[in-house]
């Protein structure tokens, strides 16, 4: 990674001097994201501007975690590459950080929307390729002890020409170690949130990411979110309607989770009713990603070895 050196005697260009902003392409909690041109090379990059607006907070934890995790993971082709971190000041004299990323021209949310708008299906081999890349990227993160915790189509960047997929937005990512730490459960976009998190589990593991991957898999096939709840309760009920209301038999310990209540009793339906058009092998993989019991959920590494991917040319991925 070409991180800037800030040692004595090294002249470092400020972000304003080094880049020409071309357009705003997004906005996050801490600031805006721009498409920009690096003046020295003409290279197009994404600039993620982070305001350090709170003197009492210092460097935001999300920025700190995102950058330090990307420093560790950025060499993987399926994790977005952080090229540099630049420091500057805004008009009010406040410190601003610019994270300089490689530029990707779309994300999976926009990609799915474009197919939904034209009424076309995403080709099965395209889905397979994207899913394999996603599993590969997540396996790399998990192998290095990192949980993403906020996987959703919007956080998966793509290059339309090469169909390359990259995991981004690691602001909520955490290093997990064994021991597993107690994590806050106020994370993750509802639609992709694992049931153990919705039920208040504070000890959780990589399985939360795999649940999100399963939801994304189904969405690639149907072009609709699999479980589109507008509250934590509604989200759980959406899940229970399809997969059946869990109990101690299918998920030992579920009734002891902090937010467990008595829920309406539904029997599990076949996944093919919710994801028509997915072949048998795909449905088998999806069912393993959507296992209720976190320890039974397939790992990203095992998912890559699933027979669903057997006919995929993995050479260039």
């Amino acid at each position, binding site marked *: 990674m070409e991180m800037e050196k800030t040692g004595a005697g090294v002249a470092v260009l400020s972000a304003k001097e080094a880049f020409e902003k071309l357009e705003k392409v997004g906005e996050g909690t801490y600031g805006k994201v721009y498409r920009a041109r690096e003046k020295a090379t003409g290279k197009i990059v994404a600039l993620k501007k982070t305001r350090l607006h709170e003197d009492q907070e210092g460097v935001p934890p999300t920025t700190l975690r995102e950058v330090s*995790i990307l420093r560790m993971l950025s060499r993987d082709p399926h994790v977005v590459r952080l090229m540099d971190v630049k420091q500057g000041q805004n008009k009010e004299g406040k410190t601003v950080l610019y994270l300089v990323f490689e530029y990707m021209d779309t994300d999976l949310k926009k990609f799915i929307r474009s197919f939904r708008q034209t009424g076309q299906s995403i080709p099965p081999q395209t889905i397979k390729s994207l899913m394999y890349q996603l599993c590969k990227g997540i396996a790399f993160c998990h192998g290095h*002890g990192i949980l993403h915790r906020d996987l959703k189509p919007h956080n998966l960047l793509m290059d339309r020409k090469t169909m390359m997929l990259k995991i981004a937005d690691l602001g909520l990512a955490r290093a997990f170690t064994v021991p597993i730490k107690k994590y*806050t459960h106020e994370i993750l976009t509802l639609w992709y949130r694992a049931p153990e998190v919705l039920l208040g589990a504070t000890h959780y*593991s990589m399985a939360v990411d795999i649940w999100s991957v399963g939801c994304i898999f189904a969405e690639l096939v149907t072009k609709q979110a699999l479980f589109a709840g507008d509250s934590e309760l509604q989200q759980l009920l959406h899940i229970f309607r399809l997969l059946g209301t869990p109990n101690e038999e299918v998920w030992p310990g579920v009734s002891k989770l902090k937010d467990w209540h008595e829920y309406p009793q539904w029997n599990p339906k076949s996944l093919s009713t919710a994801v028509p058009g997915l072949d048998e092998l795909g449905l088998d993989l999806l069912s393993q990603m959507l296992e209720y019991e976190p320890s039974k959920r397939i790992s990203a590494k095992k998912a890559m070895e699933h027979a669903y991917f057997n006919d995929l040319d993995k050479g260039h991925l």
Partner: protein
Amino acid sequence: MDDDLSSSLLCHENETCLKEGGEELEYQFAGSQHDCGVSEDERVGILIEREIVLGFKRDESMVFGDWVKRARVEAINWILKTRATLGFRFETAYLSVTYFDRFLSRRSIDSEKSWAIRLLSIACLSLAAKMEECNVPGLSEFKLDDYSFEGKVIQKMELLVLSTLEWEMGIITPFDFLSYFITKFCKESPPSPIFYKTMQLIFTTMKEVNLMDHKPSVIAVAATLVAMDQQLTRDAVELKMSSIPQHRLLESKDVFEYYNLIQRLYEENTKSDTHTPIEMTESSRVTSSAAMTKRRRLTFSDDEGSSHGKGPPG
């Protein structure tokens, strides 16, 4: 976790708590709920490889001077005391000392700038808390006895630490290895007392050594072995280590050297205090010649870069 690993687990307790001063530290041992498709052996292999990238090795040209050593002990005492006050995990305190040592291995601080060491310790603990803790307090919660720093000054120091460490903050510590080594070594012993004792040994030696000089895996193995048996010969250490699939990645010479260092410090502690041979000195206060003076405020002047600060007025 792979079946072959599950069957080889020697300690079958899922969770053990380290009780310290009435608080509980949850410590969950390796178990099937952590399956990420990577066996524990592979995970430890990845960590040991990352240690090499992170540059944990003794650099003879980089030896802390006497004043830095003294200031460092004071900083560690403050970090441990503040860890207890703010309810942070022990791992957070250790990580902050790793940042502290890493920073001082790359930048020097003039001996008359004791305020800079204080500021550095606040920045390191604040950054470690942001990496490790779920609830991070505001910068004003990090209080010193002898100086008062504004939030924006601490923020500038945080940024200096980050740029000096090149934002490489996901640093490995011995705690990343503990459950693995305790599980491999403990056989019939219940892990809880071993774990607690190993923690104490790690924290005791932390004050005496530059953490950049020793690989965290080496510290973890050596401390675990001392916690289990203080009479091991070099051959016995090598024999114990051979039970670890990743033992070829660990230098037995380094492990035995650190084992002896812990032993020596353990004995010194035992002689100096018969009641608590190894004590986490979180209750000890920061002592310094400036501690008796009134609080003084440090501000960076606008014309200075974030790497320098004006000392407090004399």
